[in-house]
């Protein structure tokens, strides 16, 4: 796994830059990760979503799907598309420092 420096901190990431070590993440890093993908400011609503993702991952060991964030987390899907435009599932997990959601092949 490659190591990269984000916001002055060394972290482990995969080939696409998704963090691979849950415990290396912190809120400062999240702000930097958000900037990397064009989200300049994380609002309170962004944070609520990110915190749900972090907590859900801790419980289940898997990055929650968009559907799970919407039905279990209670964030309407439309809202998630506004907060994390075009690719919410990918962007949310990137900022929350969780593995990228993937298919089988």
């Amino acid at each position: 796994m490659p190591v990269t420096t984000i916001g002055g901190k060394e972290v482990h990431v995969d080939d696409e830059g998704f963090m691979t070590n849950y415990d290396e993440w912190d809120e400062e890093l999240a702000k930097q990760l958000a900037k990397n993908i064009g989200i300049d400011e994380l609002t309170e609503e962004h944070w609520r979503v990110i915190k749900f993702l972090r907590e859900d991952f801790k419980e289940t060991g898997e990055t929650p799907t968009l559907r799970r964030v919407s039905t279990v987390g209670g964030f309407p899907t439309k809202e998630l598309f506004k907060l994390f435009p075009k690719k919410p599932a990918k962007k949310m997990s990137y900022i929350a420092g969780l593995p990228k959601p993937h298919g089988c092949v």
Partner: protein
Amino acid sequence: MKRLVVLGAGTAGTMVVNKLRPRLDPNEWEIVIVDQEPTHFYQPGFLFLPFGEYGPQDVKKPKKRFIPAGVEFIEGTIDSVDADANTVLLGDGTQLTYDYLVIATGTHPRPEETPGMDGPEFGKTIHTFYTFEGALALREALKGFDGGKLVVHMVDMPFKCPVAPLEFTFLADAYFTELGMRDQVEITYVTPMSGAFTKPVASAHLGNMFDERKIHLESDFYTERIDTDKNALVSYDEREVPYDLVVTVPLNMGADFVAKSGLGDELNHIPVDKGTFVHKDHDNLFVLGDAANIPTSKAGSVAHFAVDVFVPNFLRHIEGLPMLEQFDGHSNCFIESGHGKGLLIDFNYDTQPLPGKYPLPGIGPFTLLGETEMNHWGKLLFRWMYWNLLLPGKELPLPALMSMAGKIPEDE
């Protein structure tokens, strides 16, 4: 007398009772299996029905034929499970108590979960090959299709046999090419994922399969509804994909009794330990096959390998011994690519699909991540193996856990 109850007589449930019956003393153990559907469908065969390559009789047999002597088959619906009281309530009011429970009720397409899908157009311009009836209706639709926009669509992950829509796309390309009308059909593949292939090595090897076949890709498409006035799929970010014929994979959900029993996640799949399939709060409850929420593909091959790991574990568990085997998420899938060829992928929780040979290193006969005729023959041969070896619980010469032998690692 102890009682093992198995819910669901599909691929996983049938294999489990066939493997456990000879290994559990009939004087001590009663085995009961419950299913509401009398017919066992060979679901991988549904892919071939629309193209006329298989007929209806090739993909179905009576379930009872695969249930061994000494196992009671109850045909009926399941109302709920009370995992604290160790009871199953059936739809007709019968209460079954159990010492151990295996849930293997699978996952099923739910067209009604997507607005616009399950209306008057379902079976007309909107089709699915994920059911027997659906695949046969699609066969007629393809016969009558005189060109236009063919859209292959999936609502959301996870769904069973995740390579099936890819295969359908490749087979449709070949089908219309062979009819001499491929230039009149525009094929678009619409996925909620970031691409048709999402794993790096597979993407590198297979990424050009779409371009070569002139298949359009619409990725990151998260479907909100189908607009049947406009004949278009509509996403949450307000993109539209127009169609003349859409072949969809509806949202897949586990059985309703799972939700009623408070055992499932948001899609009625049941979270269990991914190494042993035991429920975290009930150590006499196991979930096998597509019904489980474990991070690997929902597929018959996974059910097969999972059962091979489960059986020795279960026999130790009931003696009070620790379960020694750990499932690795092993999955093995043929991917039909059209014109009598196919691909093969073999992977697990930690190892993505890699190129190489399978099952014998250097020899094969099957080729991983490459298109060959032998892979296609493997897929066709598998139907015989399924009915005659796999379901009756006979040993297949394939190890349950994934092996790196024959694979070319990523960094070489």
